[in-house]
């Protein structure tokens, strides 16, 4: 009981400490984001605050929340008062729109480039010197190779990984011609290519010894614990891993074909209208498209949309053939229905490989 009293007094002292906050005309924004953007928004928030003070004479303070993209979307649906959301995939913002009714149906056309101010792609991280000689997607299913990727059911990044692998196999099956997807004459070839893609992706997952729940968990498993030969991951995550975990441990291998990952941003209408922060929230996201915002994104390893800024960083972002979710999978909602929903392809794939007794 005495400890309780001491703790209570400590708490009171702390609370008293809290209440001495500085005053002044200020506005607060809450940006609910996913894991890999921490470093990006830390720098961008300062830049925007400076910009906004000059432009509107108002002090803006941006609070950040990071977590898995899906659980962040859920928190917003359940009432986390986010002014803006900056998530890993459009499906999560669609969910906020459909289930939470917190923003308009046309959110994706509110900002340029499908509301995705920066992009990334899916690449491989291998051990220093590439001892297994990994060059492209087919190397991942060689018998001597083990692969680390997170669980697509719990990680947004893992879904991009999955779709990238799928897209590669489909691309191969269609002889590199995406137009066949819409060509009735090529129907049989498309069907065969889809089946081959399903087999290829299933085979990759048979080479996975650990399914972490998030992208950074997988990076840590691969780099720190020494599990696996290849880590499938976002390009921005791979570059960051090299930067912060040491260039002598791992290196990047860029596959021949990959997906254009477009992490989208949106203003949450119900929240900004209640708080009266629409103007600043929109300016905040708009600023991501400015040269300054684009440069910050590029510095934090995201591919900028602005061609000029991209040209400045060309060495960091090698060119490769990229396809989009819209082109190949008919948008995120359809991709989710077909691949990741309950008992969709991914679940069936795991069940099938269990029956085959592959492991």
């Amino acid at each position, binding site marked *: 009981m005495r400890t309780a009293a001491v703790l209570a007094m400590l708490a009171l002292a702390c609370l008293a400490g809290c209440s001495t906050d500085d005053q002044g005309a200020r506005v607060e924004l809450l940006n609910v984001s996913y894991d890999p953007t921490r470093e990006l928004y830390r720098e961008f928030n300062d830049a925007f605050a400076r910009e906004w003070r000059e432009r509107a004479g108002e002090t803006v303070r941006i609070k950040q929340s990071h977590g898995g993209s899906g659980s962040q979307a859920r928190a917003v649906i359940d009432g986390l008062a986010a002014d803006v959301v900056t998530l890993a995939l459009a499906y999560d913002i669609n969910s906020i729109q459909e289930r939470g009714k917190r923003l308009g149906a046309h959110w994706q056309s509110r900002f340029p480039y499908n509301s995705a101010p920066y992009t990334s792609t899916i690449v491989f991280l291998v051990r220093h010197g590439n001892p297994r000689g990994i060059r492209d997607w087919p190397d991942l299913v060689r018998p001597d190779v083990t692969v680390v990727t997170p669980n697509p*059911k719990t990680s947004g990044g893992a879904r991009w990984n999955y779709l990238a692998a799928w897209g590669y196999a489909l691309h191969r099956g269609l002889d590199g011609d995406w137009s066949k997807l819409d060509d009735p004459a090529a129907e049989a070839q498309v069907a065969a290519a889809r089946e081959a893609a399903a087999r290829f992706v299933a085979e990759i997952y048979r080479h996975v010894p*650990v399914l972490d*729940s998030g992208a950074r968990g997988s990076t840590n498993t691969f780099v720190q*614990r*020494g599990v696996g030969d290849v880590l499938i991951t976002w390009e921005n995550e791979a570059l960051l891993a090299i930067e912060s975990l040491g260039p002598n441990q791992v290196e990047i291998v860029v596959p021949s074909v990959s997906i254009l990952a477009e992490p989208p941003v949106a203003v949450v209408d119900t929240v900004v209208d209640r708080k009266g922060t629409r103007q600043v929230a929109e300016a905040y996201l708009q600023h991501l498209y400015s040269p300054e915002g684009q440069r910050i994104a590029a510095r934090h390893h995201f591919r900028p949309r602005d061609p000029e800024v991209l040209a400045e960083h060309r060495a960091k972002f090698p060119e490769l053939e990229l396809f989009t979710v819209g082109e190949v999978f008919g948008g995120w909602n359809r991709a989710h229905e077909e691949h990741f929903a309950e008992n969709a392809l991914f679940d069936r794939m795991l*069940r099938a490989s269990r029956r085959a007794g592959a492991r």
Partner: protein
Amino acid sequence: MNAVRAPSILPGFGMTLGFSTFFLCAIVLIPLAALVMRTATMGWEEFLAIVLDERAVASYRLSFGAALLAAFINSVFGFVVAWTLVRYEFPGRKLIDAFIDMPFALPTAVSGIALTAVFAENGPLGQLLAAYGIRVAYTWVGIVVALTLIGLPFVVRSVQPALLEVQRDLEDAAETLGAGRFYTFRRIILPTVLPALLTGFTMAFARGVGEYGSVIFIAGNLPFETEITPLLIVIKLEEFDYAGAAALGFIMLVISFVMLLSINLLQAWGRRRMVAAGR
């Protein structure tokens, strides 16, 4: 709670029972009712399909099996540790005693990360075990290790006060009167310590069943193999399938409740028998 109670001259029954029931309702029962209600929004068929799904069943086996095994390990070693700490004097005893609670204070994620670092094949203990062909991290063994760590304080901290209460003069008397060692243990020490040991076992088990944070790092999380039920619940939540998550949570709750109730009834029965024998 229409409690029918045996007469007693001690005061405070109504007040303490009333307060604790109220508190329990407000913090535990009403929220859990929300869970049950959410489960009830789905039909029987849907409920059974989710709950009896082969992947779910595999995960119960793992979650409950690993928790049970870890609780047993803790009962044995936890008792030894408690005994050592209570009965022997050695340098560093107090410090070690103080660190017993650490698995509670350390966030489960940290325990998980630290255990994985230690037991992964490139970790200090993992390397040692790998030489004998034993893999701990990313297998069910790793899950048991994590759950053993998580449950350790329960057993040690339950048994310690009970051991302190065992009257050594009683033991000495029994021995002076010619009781054998095993007899003294069985008739004097065990009855005093058993309820506490059982409580510790129960709580270590219960905690292990629901544990998520530490297991997620050390388990491989592969479906059918190293996928625990709480992870399946998280997967359901990611699907925005609250009802499905609630259904799995509900079934875990029911199984745990039945197991806990059986242990508690057993204990109550044992106590009555002991009291009867004492009279």
